[in-house]
């Protein structure tokens, strides 16, 4: 929450009137809940309960966590899983720069802020215009998701372990759906779709020739090349899995022109 000298602003009634806190709480619930699917898929991919919890507690970035277990499930090596998870985590560094510029956390708060710097906390914060609301949004979403994501990861891991044959329950299909669900919100406009198609093709072509897990790294290389050599939106693909401000730009969702992060004004009354 607002960790500065704004103690007067922290009265319970006042804090719940804050638009950023409200949005942060609802995004925490929506995102935290799908920790169930991560927990269940992780244990059926071959990780044990504590390995699953370590990913949610320590790695704490949904896309990278799914990437790690996705590579392991496909028979890839530990180092390939690490490669995919780490490359996917690069965008969190960009988010860190944005949040650092907005919130300027100091001392231990900077280290805590770094850990909860993910798609959703960044989007909740940058969607606000008032500095105090930006700060509240970031911490509410960041800490809220951290608590609920870990809670529901544990629920999913325990449930997944009790399921028996994962294929009979279609859990390999659930993994496919999860990755498409993570990709989907980033496909706003023609260009990201083209990048996705090219990288999907590169993957399919690479599968027969390199060990499992490596095709994903090949696709990452292709994507990095596209980013390096082409010119386009500098925030392409940097979208949250669950959009905190979806209702404000719901009409633009399939608009080929795309909508930009700067359009998000929140409802700062």
């Amino acid at each position, binding site marked *: 929450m607002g960790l500065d000298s704004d103690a007067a602003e922290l009265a319970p009634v006042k804090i719940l009137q804050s638009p950023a806190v409200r949005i942060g709480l609802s995004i925490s619930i929506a995102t935290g809940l799908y920790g169930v699917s991560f927990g269940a898929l992780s244990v059926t991919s071959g990780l044990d309960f504590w390995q699953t919890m370590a990913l949610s507690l320590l790695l704490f970035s949904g896309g990278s966590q799914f990437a790690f277990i996705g590579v392991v499930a496909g028979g890839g090596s530990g180092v390939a899983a690490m490669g995919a998870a780490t490359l996917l985590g690069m*965008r969190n560094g960009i988010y860190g720069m944005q949040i650092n510029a907005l919130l300027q956390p100091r001392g231990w708060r900077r280290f805590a802020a770094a850990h909860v710097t993910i798609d959703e906390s960044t989007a909740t914060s940058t969607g606000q215009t008032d500095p105090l609301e930006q700060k509240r949004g970031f911490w509410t979403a960041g800490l809220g998701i951290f608590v609920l994501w870990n809670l529901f990861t544990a629920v999913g891991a325990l449930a997944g372990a009790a399921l028996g044959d994962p294929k009979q329950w279609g*859990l*390999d299909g659930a993994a496919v759906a999860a990755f498409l669900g993570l990709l989907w919100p980033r496909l706003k406009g023609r260009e990201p779709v083209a990048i996705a198609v090219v990288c999907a093709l*590169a993957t399919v072509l690479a599968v027969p020739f390199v060990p499992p897990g490596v*095709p994903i790294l090949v696709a990452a290389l292709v994507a990095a090349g596209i980013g390096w050599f082409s010119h386009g939106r500098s925030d392409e693909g940097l979208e949250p899995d669950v959009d905190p401000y979806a209702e404000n730009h719901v009409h633009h969702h399939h608009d080929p022109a795309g909508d930009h992060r700067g359009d998000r004004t929140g409802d700062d009354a």
Partner: protein
Amino acid sequence: MNLWMWLLLSCLLAYAWKLLGYLVPASLLRDPRMSRIAGTMTIGLLASLTVVNAVASGQSLVLDARLGALAAAGIALWFRAPFLVVVIAGAAAAAGLRLLGWD
């Protein structure tokens, strides 16, 4: 034990990315190329992971019930279903197709 090592290293590197953002000078943020690469790579990796999980089996490509899961997830997303519903739709399609005998 080996998997634990790569797992913990992944956690360390993930935190390193996040912290790096707070430690580098703000002027780097004005270089749009880094954030562009982070974005295109996110799209590329997620597209690749989707495809690998849908059609790869070891080093071969197979068309099985997972393709039904991909289609079901796509339809659910088109109708703006929440993430968890999308995942359940994928599981249900794969499980259903297997019940019908398509593996």
